[in-house]
């Protein structure tokens, strides 16, 4: 049993210890106060490790190839960013690099940094600031939107040439799901309580 204020309307609630997979909802504004998670530490670690493997494949392997008769052109996930950078549109290149490549990586490394010590029951320095950073960058991880962008591009170029998806596209789309599973198995309340115990 603990007290929590709704973060959207500030109403105080007494939250009882809840059974697994239940969600507490604010009685006044209806926003979700928090969700109880089962086996949060193990599940988060498992999904995150799977995500890192997929991430390496997505960044290194060929992403999309374009074929028009004998002429072909193969690109990686980073090619577009590199070309934007070379065209001198550095701010745009940086934005795409951050939202699709750097921030998902920071999210996964951050999860490992927080959850491995929790699993081993040891204390680490800077765990609280790292977890805060992890929470703040969440809306800036936009891989699913990039995926929709690929779909639109394929339709747009369909008349000019054939687009052949590479291995990295499959890894990338799987990564979107895996990272989401990792994020949704994080029990924030549990993490803060554990971090408080081991200051």
């Amino acid at each position, binding site marked *: 049993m603990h007290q929590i204020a709704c973060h959207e309307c*500030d109403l105080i609630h007494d939250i009882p210890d809840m059974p697994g997979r239940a969600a507490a909802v604010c009685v006044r504004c209806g926003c979700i106060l928090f969700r109880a998670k089962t086996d949060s530490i193990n599940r988060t670690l498992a999904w995150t490790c799977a995500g890192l493997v997929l991430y390496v494949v997505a960044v290194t392997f060929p992403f999309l190839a374009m074929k028009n008769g004998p002429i072909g052109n193969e690109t990686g996930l980073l090619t577009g960013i590199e070309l934007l950078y070379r065209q001198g549109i550095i701010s745009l290149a940086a934005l795409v690099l951050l939202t699709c490549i750097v921030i998902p990586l920071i999210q996964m490394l951050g999860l490992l940094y927080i959850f491995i010590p929790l699993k081993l029951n040891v204390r680490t320095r800077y765990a609280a600031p790292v977890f805060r950073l992890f929470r703040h960058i969440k809306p800036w991880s936009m891989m699913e939107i990039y995926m929709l*962008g690929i779909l639109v591009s394929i339709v747009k170029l369909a008349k000019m040439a054939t687009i052949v998806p590479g291995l990295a596209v499959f890894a990338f789309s799987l990564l979107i799901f895996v990272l989401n599973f990792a994020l949704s198995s994080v029990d924030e309340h549990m993490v803060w309580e554990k971090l408080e115990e081991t200051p």
Partner: protein
Amino acid sequence: MNPAHSSARRLGLISCHDCHLLSRAPDLATGETAYCSRCGEELHQRKPNSVARTWALVLAAMVCYVPANVLPMTITTALGSAQSDTIMSGVIYFIHSGSFAIAAVIFTASVFVPFLKFAILIYLLLTVQFKSTRRPKDRTRLYRFTEAIGRWSMLDIYVVTILVALVKLGFIAEIDAGPAAFYFAAVVVITMFAAESFDPRLIWDVVEDKDE
């Protein structure tokens, strides 16, 4: 309202933005800041200068919205002739080629969503400033909705990046990002910050103060 249900503000408590720990609101001299004892984040009863900051960001984004829609987003060079496309001409191209679903997706993400965000945020700011007590629950819901949809406007930026990558490098045609891409990215980033700087608890503060 049920006396058992009171807001943290009325009880003299501050809920941490990050870890949601409740702390007693400290008496601070000017220039002093309180920090959460659990996670170390600065403690504020409400997001600081929420209304002014959100107004500033919304207005800045609206200024960028104009060149984002008027200037060309992509410049296609094929066999020596160049063609500029704005966001809307891209949508029209998809309608003509029969891909209505894709046209709808691009129109929604690039034109309609930013517009909707401006409208909702301005409505929320005005109702808070004029101390409206109408339908606070629905207004909170509107806020949650704006927060969720904003990121999808990035779609067009990604499409440009992918097109540039695919069509470049030894192909007959070449696609370059146009000046609108920069302004459009600015609209998306600034409106995301605007939604984040608005504090939905302000809606409920007005309702509580009127109850007294």
